[in-house]
């Protein structure tokens, strides 16, 4: 189960080398995403995570908001 974190922790983790994943649809990702984020829409996350992510580094996922 992913651990919830806030904005400051995102910045600390990313500064420390964490991977950041935007799970929104591609068109939303293209409009705006966090610096360095890669796009893995939710429905493809499980399928793509294994090949696209480095297991040795923390992963931060986000979508639009908490709703």
């Amino acid at each position, binding site marked *: 189960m992913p651990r919830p974190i806030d904005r400051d922790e995102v910045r600390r983790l990313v500064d420390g080398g964490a991977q950041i994943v935007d799970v929104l649809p591609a068109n939303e990702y293209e409009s*705006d995403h966090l610096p360095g984020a890669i796009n893995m829409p939710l429905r493809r996350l499980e399928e793509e995570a294994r090949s696209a992510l480095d297991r040795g580094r923390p992963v931060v996922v986000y979508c639009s908001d908490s709703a």
Partner: protein
Amino acid sequence: MFDYEDGKLDWLAAGLPSEGTNAQRPRAGDIARKDVPTCRLDERLGDVRDRARWAGWDACVVLNEERVVFGLLRSKELEASPDLRIEEAMRPGPSTFRPFVSIEEITAFMMEHDLESSPITTSDGRLVGLLLREDAAEASLDLHERERHSDGGQT
């Protein structure tokens, strides 16, 4: 694995940098003036007016100790009796916008509602800067011209 629950909107509302096609277009936080004078609720209007005008401004944003916006003094409010306290003179609870709002959207709103200026704040109400209507209109026009030229003049 970590879940940034508040998500992209929280990040953008804090005025933090982003990437993508929207990041290339000017937004409210980019155009807002960061050097706007600020004051506290308990100050004297005359002192604040003098300070603002000496800095070349005809506006001042009212903040608390944590830089949360409480009110706004535009040219009209600054003309009131100099012995008033800011709390009495200010326009409380002004319309504010998040830094990520597009410049076209905010320009249209300011024109429609005849706003000289609007504070730009983070999602927790902290001041980012003051957006002046003339700056917003100029940025919106520049953007329109750039996009028109990049289309080869086609409309």
